[in-house]
């Protein structure tokens, strides 16, 4: 395990964490990290709070998704040019989709079908029938598509293109490109609010999160992050996780080694005439220090905890999502890119 410390930036190491107190609810279930560097998936038993199994994969596992019952894990293997479907009990590969340079894939819910894939090298979003493993349609995107989100009603697909710096919207039914919204440079991720009204898009180089109206495609707000003593260029937002009530979001800030807690107590959207007229009221409540370079995180099913995949310290930080404290750290494989948690 490599644990590099940014001594010169004055960042304390990720290990200085408060220990869990008895008052905190017990964790259960399993979590999975895709470890980009050593080509494995780490299986974490959350009750024991440790990695209990390491599953070898193809080359460069990054994006993952789970079927709604948690029985199948889909892993994008960028350098093997395929997505493997693994059984989460036997850890056998039960299916494969050959598709060039997949970075991230998301299943449409409910129904676990079809599968939307960002093919980063080919400027394409491809859509697959997961049962027959046949491609249904492909949609041309900007340069380097990565982030992918499907609206809660399954009708709208949002994709981010890193080099083109756009959030792109496609219709589920027709595959038609509906809108392209320019955002600050290198958008990495898109997340719908649970009411389906907003899409939040992180810009890694811009250092911002753009909130876009999912009906009008107008920009509602641009959220900035300021951390005292840290240069703005190290604040690189990537993963976004929004609570079910849509009132709080956790944003992974990459090399800032922190997760930002963004609160949206109420939305009073009146007009979009001017960006200066504040119609959307998001405030950053807190920055939580986690391991090094968190890119993606996920909630436990009860939303009581958030787990972050820390790419440079090769571990997972466990955040108490109510008390907003980091309570534990679990070692995983090399360069975890993403973490998913079983539904039960």
């Amino acid at each position, binding site marked *: 395990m490599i644990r590099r410390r940014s001594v010169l930036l004055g960042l304390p190491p990720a290990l200085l964490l408060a220990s869990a107190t008895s008052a905190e609810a017990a964790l259960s279930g399993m979590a999975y990290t895709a470890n980009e560097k050593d080509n494995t998936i780490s299986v974490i038993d959350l009750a024991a709070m440790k990695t209990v199994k390491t599953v070898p994969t193809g080359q460069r596992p990054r994006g993952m998704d789970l079927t709604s019952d948690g029985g199948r894990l889909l892993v994008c293997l960028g350098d093997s040019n395929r997505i493997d479907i693994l059984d989460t009990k036997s850890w056998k590969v039960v299916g494969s989709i050959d598709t060039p340079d997949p970075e991230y894939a998301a299943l449409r819910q409910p129904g676990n079908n079809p599968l939307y894939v960002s093919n980063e090298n080919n400027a394409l979003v491809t859509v697959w029938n997961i049962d027959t493993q046949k491609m249904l349609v492909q949609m041309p995107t900007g340069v380097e598509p990565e982030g992918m989100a499907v609206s809660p009603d399954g009708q709208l697909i949002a994709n981010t293109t890193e080099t083109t710096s756009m959030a792109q919207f496609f219709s589920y039914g027709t595959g038609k*490109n509906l809108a392209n919204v320019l955002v600050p440079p290198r958008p990495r991720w898109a997340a719908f609010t649970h009411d389906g009204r907003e899409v939040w898009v992180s810009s890694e180089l811009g250092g911002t999160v753009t909130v876009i109206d999912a009906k009008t495609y107008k920009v509602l707000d641009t959220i900035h992050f300021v951390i005292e003593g840290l240069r703005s*260029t190290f604040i690189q937002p990537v993963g976004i996780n929004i609570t079910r009530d849509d009132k709080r979001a956790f944003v992974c800030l990459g090399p800032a080694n922190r997760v930002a807690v963004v609160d949206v107590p109420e939305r009073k959207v009146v007009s979009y005439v001017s960006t200066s007229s504040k119609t959307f009221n998001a405030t950053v409540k807190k920055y939580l220090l986690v391991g090094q370079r968190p890119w993606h995180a996920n909630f436990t099913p009860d939303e009581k905890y958030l787990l972050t995949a820390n790419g440079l310290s090769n571990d997972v930080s466990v955040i108490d999502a109510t008390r907003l404290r980091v309570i534990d750290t679990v070692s995983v494989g090399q360069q975890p890119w993403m973490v998913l948690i079983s539904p039960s």
Partner: protein
Amino acid sequence: MIETRLPTKEKPLTGRRAVLGAFAVTAGAGLLQQAAAAPAPTLTIGYVHWLHEVDTLSYIFQPAPNDGRAGAEVAIADNNTTGRFLNQNFALAAVEVRDNEDPVAALNALIAKGIRLVITDRPAADVLKMATAAAPHGVTIFNAGAAEDSLREEDCRGNLIHTAPSDNMLADALAQYLIWKRWPRWLLAYGEHPRDLRLAAAYRRAAKIFGAHIVAERQYKGKVGSRETDTGLIDLQEQLPVFTQNAPNYDVLVAADDNSVFAGYLPYRTWDARLVAGSAGLIPTSWDPNSEEWGGRQMQDRFVAYAHRFMTALDMNAWVAARMVGTAASYAQSLDPDKIMAYMRGSDFQLGAYRGLSLSIREWNGQVRQAILLSDSGRLVVSVSPQPGFLHQRTVLDTLGTDKPETKCKLS
């Protein structure tokens, strides 16, 4: 003089404003395309390309005839992948100029077509001539090739943007790493070419700034020769140790050899068992075909698919120039060169270029600030500068090269 363009898939537009150029050109062959219902308005970027013979000591590093130009072509395709969603189209009009031909005539031919943004990889003296000729026409020149600091300093011009890092930036990038490694004692070796003398001056400056000590200097006397000679290597094995003999104790041999005369021969041939850096060994550069960090793999893959060879630093500098134009056009939502340049020079402009921190323009001299890779002679990337601990009040990228308080450039 040969003029080339990217493969045209659409018929030329007619009746469009001359200022936008007359060619509708889509993305390059092999890259994904989507036919538009109506042709989008097109901005043509010029490229004055230096077609010349360069002899490198290493056979595999002989530059391709389209070195640099291919980078701009891939950037045009990237611009169009973006532009197809924004009703913007981009084309490249490249003019190849040989050593005995006049780059200003080539530039004027592009200006006559209404082209106002021109990339070039010509040497510094030609870049200056072109900038002077371009100024009355409101034409901006993007310098992708010349590293001379004088072009950014005493000879700076308001219509010059430098995507090529300067000698001082490259020297500072290497110096920071050697200091980080605590290898502060340098033996400086430089050649006879005027470029070598400037590069040596950049290393002396970097040593002073970052606290290194040049224990001795050696000048290598010898002209550019034929790369390949059948001596069985015995000459080199005899000559190079003697060149580095009797030096005071040093950590690293820093070589300033811009024309590939001798530096490539230094590794493994020094009198003492020492590392080599600078023009051989550990090389500071704006790009390396092995760089896969920060999404660089996608850039490399796109380039290889297009050009069927690896992407050089010159390709990257030209890619940056054409992508700066495309990115500024996206955000300014305009193909008007004046609006594009105004956005590009503004405080909001950032270009992601696969080196971690985004690129932007130093408003005081037109230099593009950028991270510098340290390459193990094109085998692997060893590190990237700025190094940890070298801080700056504005951006750590401004620890590389001439900073605002020191600049001799006065742009009116």
